């Protein structure tokens, strides 16, 4: 039987106080917990924490719960919550912020395909300036769950026969410009 009480010393209040200082996270404290975000979110029925709960938890400083959750990765960035929120809270942007922090602090669920895909994607783009749809999915599958490739075999075939599957590894010409991006983000993030 797991005991579920939360002691106040577990709450990271400094993190909570600083959260609203980030771009687009300013209105988080206005949340009246109405639940419209969760009600409109197409993915909320799959989430461990609903978007509303995530906002409540950020406010109260339960940092690890939020950063370890699958919820933030399930967000499809459809912006329905941000548009419907009666307090104009940019929930989608808050989710992005949490995703970034989850990666930086290494608290994200390691075998969950979505953060894995994100990192593979970014790796490709960082080095080559473009991504190759096929290779990103392939590498993601290898890292998280190779069986996915089997389920996608039919799709792969369909794409191939209609000329929509490009196996080329794309790259921009002036790749050197990309290094400045990497440098800038190392400094800031």
């Amino acid at each position, binding site marked *: 039987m797991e005991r579920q009480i939360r002691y106040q010393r577990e709450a990271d209040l400094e993190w909570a106080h600083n959260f609203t200082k980030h771009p687009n996270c300013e209105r988080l404290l206005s949340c009246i917990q109405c639940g419209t975000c969760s009600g409109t979110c197409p993915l909320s029925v799959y989430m461990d924490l609903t978007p509303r709960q995530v906002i409540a938890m950020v406010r109260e400083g339960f940092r690890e719960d939020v950063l370890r959750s699958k919820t933030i990765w*399930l967000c499809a960035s459809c912006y329905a919550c941000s548009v419907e929120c009666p307090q104009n809270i940019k929930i989608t942007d808050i989710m992005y912020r949490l995703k970034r922090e989850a990666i930086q602090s290494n608290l994200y669920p390691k075998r969950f395909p*979505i953060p894995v895909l994100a990192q593979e*994607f970014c790796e490709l783009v960082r080095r080559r300036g*473009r*991504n190759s749809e096929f290779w990103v999915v392939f590498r993601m599958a290898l890292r998280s769950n190779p069986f996915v490739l089997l*389920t996608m075999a039919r799709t792969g075939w369909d794409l191939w026969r209609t000329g929509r*599957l490009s196996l080329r590894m794309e790259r921009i010409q002036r790749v050197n410009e990309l290094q400045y991006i990497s440098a800038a*983000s190392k400094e800031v*993030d």
Partner: protein
Amino acid sequence: MEPSAKYLYYPGCSLKGTGIAYEESLLTTFCLLEMPIQELPDWNCCGATTYMSVSETSATLLAARNLALARRTGSRDLLAPCNACYLTLRKSQELVAHYPQIAQETERFLEQAGLPRLDSVRVRHPLEVLYNDVGLQRLRELTVRRLQGVRMASYYGCQAVRPYGEVDDPHNPTRMDEILKAVGVEVVDYSLKTKCCGGSHTGTIHDVGVRLNYILLKEAMRRGAQALVTICPLCQFNLDAYQAEIRKQTGEPIDMPILYLTQVVGWALGGEFRELGLHRAISGRKLVEQWFTAKKEAETYV
């Protein structure tokens, strides 16, 4: 520097791969409208939703590079057909405009990379370019053939209409419906027109993603739509590529063509089957071939 075309075209990674038909139909349609478009030279991936999940700075700078490149060619209008690319580019503009620190970082990067400063490049989407720059009246006039007795539903997806309601209204967009009607298509009312297709989830949490699309397809069928018309390559792919799997899982006979707006409009304006990428349809092939070949007697030549 004078641009060779009014619209610079930003393909984004999808339009060279799974969304190649969008590029083909876009170029064809704009050519038929006598609005030349030119591909942005050396464009880079916009980062879409994914890069923002990893690094805000990089995401903004990746988008900024494209905007700066557009500026360099002297063009004012950057056409981004993919909803995600459109939103990402617009978003970085908003971040730079509202957050001085981000503006500073962006300026520094552009300087280092030898790129021009960001300067009011307008990010455009084909839906609103067709609506605003071309206009319904001109589309009506230029229509040379109509699809008889074919009912379609518009699917706008998310990121073109949310959160910036500039391409169309976030709650009740109607521009695509109006354009389709203007080119002679019978449009069906569709409540789920802005419900998310799951984006990249079909590739990662596959079952969840596929279900979201099943819902969209089923409701479209229930409403009497024979095809869905989209404006985003990822939406098109999601709706198009998994119908066989859905048929197997649910037993429901879903085999619906998923068309790009530019394909339907292009065809109405006189474009040909292959040059509009219509041969690349995965689902509903028979119907696509039936509707879009010039040999049908039921056509009206206007």
